[in-house]
């Protein structure tokens, strides 16, 4: 299984995470390496071309408004993993890595098991899963 890292994530993170590809059966590619500055509506195509099922991104501001974009990505068939900062932690490359490494096994198994598309919200505290249907209800 493959996952694409968005441009706000540290570009070297893909290489670091790929050291565990065999162990968790999940690989990562950074979007800047394949489609720098890509538009939102190109992401489903880019994911298909690279056999990726999810996009990892980070969001530091109004999650409510940004969820509309995540809903549209889920609607287009792409799961979204979003890193959210805590009051204590800035999303520096180290924190981005720590959050993803800590939950790598869980992310891989959730994406493998799921039938539909999911929004996975990653914080220092853990992972919160939201289905497209739940997201529709929360937003509308």
């Amino acid at each position, binding site marked *: 299984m493959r996952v694409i890292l*968005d*441009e*706000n994530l*540290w*570009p*070297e993170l893909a290489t670091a995470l790929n050291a565990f590809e065999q162990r968790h059966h999940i690989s990562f590619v950074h*979007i*800047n390496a394949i489609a*720098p*500055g*890509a*538009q*939102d*509506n190109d*992401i*489903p195509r880019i994911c298909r071309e690279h056999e990726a099922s999810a996009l990892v991104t*980070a969001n*530091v*501001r*109004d999650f*409510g*408004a*940004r969820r*509309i*974009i995540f*809903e*549209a*990505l*889920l*609607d*287009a068939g792409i799961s979204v993993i979003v890193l959210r*900062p805590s009051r204590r932690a*800035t*999303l*520096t*490359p180290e924190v981005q890595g720590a959050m993803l490494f800590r939950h790598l096994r869980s992310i891989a198994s959730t994406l493998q098991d799921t039938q539909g598309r999911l929004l996975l919200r990653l914080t220092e505290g853990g992972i919160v899963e939201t289905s497209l249907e739940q*997201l*529709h209800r929360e*937003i*509308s």
Partner: protein
Amino acid sequence: MPSRRSGLIVLGEGVYTVAEVSHILQPTMTPRKVHYWLKKGILGDPLRPTKTGRATLLTFEQLLKVRTVQHLRDNLRFSLQRVTLTIEELSDWVFRRLFTKQWYELHFYRSPKGAVAVTDGQHDLEVGTGQLLMPDLLPELDSFLRKTREDWERRAVEIEGYPRLVSNARILGGAPVIRGTRVETAFVAHLTKELEPKEILRLYPYVNEEGLYQALEFERAPLAV
């Protein structure tokens, strides 16, 4: 092409809170003004209406409408007694020609009665301003509307004073980003809580120095209220 719609938007359309619209259209725009024009019905129905605990959401087209209304209002200097009615009538006429498939070349001119008028080549609308206007204002309004039409077609607006930044409805739903990237101004500002700008440039080689410093300045700029 946008995907099918079952959510609030399809990918490639923008979505903006009122605060974001004001931030992008700084320094003169305020949330209060946006809410006022919304309440007057000039901007059309919001993507998601105001509800307790949830932000009002606007489309990219509505962002351009806010900018246009403000520009026309500031420059045409309508008499205070008639400003709202006139701007409502003028905006409605202009928007029906600006945001459609067909391209209308709109042109402002002085009518024989001395009033300001706008034409699409076939139909004209005359509006009274009650004020003296600078002679070069009318051609400036023509080019402003042409630019607005171009922005509508490419779904992107420049951010005044920050040439390395852009709000593109097709990138992160219109969140201000460093031009040519998907890196939000808000994200790099967040990183500076722990990282020096030089360190960010080293870690993110596709972020250029000028873009980074403009993003930081844009995020630090005080918001009008």
